[in-house]
């Protein structure tokens, strides 16, 4: 790896500073700060209602924080505050440098158009205007997420749950984003399909040097994918650290409870 790359990896990609969000009297997210580096996978774990999803929306600029701010280092190297981005810039970021994998693939896919067009949409949105090249790139990505090329012209509503989720991943990664948000990407899948999906994700994340913020209540997912873990409870981050450290040697009573609630294999 060349020197500029190394230097680039030394600077954080995304920095959250005392992020808070309240809905009326309910504080969904309180004083969250962290920095994410390129190629780093951060898992946000916690039970339902702990503020994980709100935090993800704050980080991805879909919700405006009540206090605090999020800074993101753009592709040109300039760090910008997300709240100062115009809507056009934010949407452009979402189509190019970011990905968002929803728990329900129907939210992230266009269910009525073919898989190829689903993958190609981002390319066309950034001005690709050559059918052959778009299709080649789409086929390439379908292969990478282990979807049979013969199904490229089928709509995702004819796909199984696992295939839909893999298609959603391909659709997000086609513009080679640097940061991908994932909201319970394995939710609703059976265990064998989950295992394959996680395996695939782990490979892609390493290969593409992706930074990932993954929200999950499944500690096994966090253990498999992430480098660091943040544990949330009642809108606060109560514990953060390296994944194995947090999961094998939890400090907070709540984290201990969380870890001990996993059924032994």
């Amino acid at each position, binding site marked *: 790896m060349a020197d500029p790359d190394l230097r680039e990896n030394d600077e954080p990609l995304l920095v959250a500073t005392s992020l808070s969000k309240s809905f009326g009297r309910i504080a969904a997210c309180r004083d969250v700060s962290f920095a994410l580096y390129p190629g780093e996978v951060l898992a946000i774990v916690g039970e339902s209602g702990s503020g994980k999803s709100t935090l993800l929306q704050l980080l991805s600029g879909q919700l405006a924080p009540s206090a605090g701010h999020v800074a993101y280092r753009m592709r040109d190297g300039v760090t910008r505050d997300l709240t100062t981005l115009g809507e056009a810039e934010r949407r452009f970021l979402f189509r190019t440098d970011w990905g968002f994998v929803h728990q329900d693939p129907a939210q992230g896919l*266009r269910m009525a158009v073919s898989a190829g*067009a689903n993958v190609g*949409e981002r390319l*066309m949105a950034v001005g690709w205007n*050559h*059918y052959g090249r*778009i299709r080649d790139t789409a086929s390439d990505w379908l292969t990478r997420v282990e979807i049979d090329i013969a199904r490229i*012209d089928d709509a995702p509503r004819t796909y199984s749950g696992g295939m839909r989720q893999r298609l959603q991943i391909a659709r997000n990664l086609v513009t080679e984003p640097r940061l991908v948000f994932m909201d319970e990407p394995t939710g609703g899948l059976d265990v064998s399909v989950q295992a394959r999906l996680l395996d695939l994700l782990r490979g892609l994340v390493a290969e593409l040097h992706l930074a990932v913020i993954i929200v999950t209540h499944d500690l096994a997912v966090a253990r498999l994918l992430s480098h660091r873990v943040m544990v949330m409870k009642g809108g606060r981050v109560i514990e953060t650290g390296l994944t194995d450290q947090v999961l094998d040697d939890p400090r907070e009573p709540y984290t201990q409870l969380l870890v001990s609630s996993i059924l032994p294999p």
Partner: protein
Amino acid sequence: MNAPAYNFAYLDEQTKRMIRRAILKAIAIPGYQVPFASREMPMPYGWGTGGVQVTAAILGPQDVLKVIDQGSDDTTNAISIRKFFAKTAGVATTTATEEATVIQTRHRIPEAALSESQVLVYQVPIPEPLRFLEPRETETRRMHALAEYGLMHVKLYEDIARFGHIATAYAYPVKVNARYVMDPSPTPKFDNPKMDNCPALQLFGAGREKRIYAIPPYTQVVSLDFEDHPFEPYRFNAPCALCGAEDSYLDEIVTDDKGSRMFVCSDTDYCEGRQAAGHHGSLSGAPYKEKAQGGTNG
């Protein structure tokens, strides 16, 4: 018509002013869909309520009106609207494209070249080109505002993936003045090139959807396509059976239940003009009229 029960051209003056303001705004922002307070008209939605309101708002006593439906001057829709304005505005009407100053059209652009002194008014059923891909109106408006038109190419991509070529044959999306993507109403894509750099003002009225948009004279109108699948206007590969025209848009007419068919110009005025000028097609000479007179069982 001694004591007209209606204001000139049916609509009251306040309504016309409101529509004219929308039209002016539409001309100022080519291709942008301007919302307007569409009125109930004495005809059902889908019969051209939008086009009729636009025509009523721009019509003056000196105007000469032509109305076509699928290129034809003599279908129910065209005749009804022509009579409507003859009655409520007392304007002269014509079927000759060259003589008209205002042409209201449903689904066609006349074959004869338009001039600067003419206004073409389109009846539009669904003005939003992104509608069938993105059902949310809030979202499509935002996409127009931010010029996010990747989705439009998704539709063309789907066509090629399914049929091997861009199979959209009508309502083919265009980009106006290098900014707004616009639905040219359900005109065949054969007519798309005529919109580009057209000397006449083109106004589009959608009554049910309450939108007006416009292409000012001499504005660039580009049909969307892919580099490796360029836009191609479609035309049946046949001459007109009545006038022999090789360059006009053709209607396919089934003539019996054994698969016989004939192709004739969709623009009746153009076809009749050519026949009057001595052009002939393979079936011209009105064989059907003669048969009807001399046939045994009519």
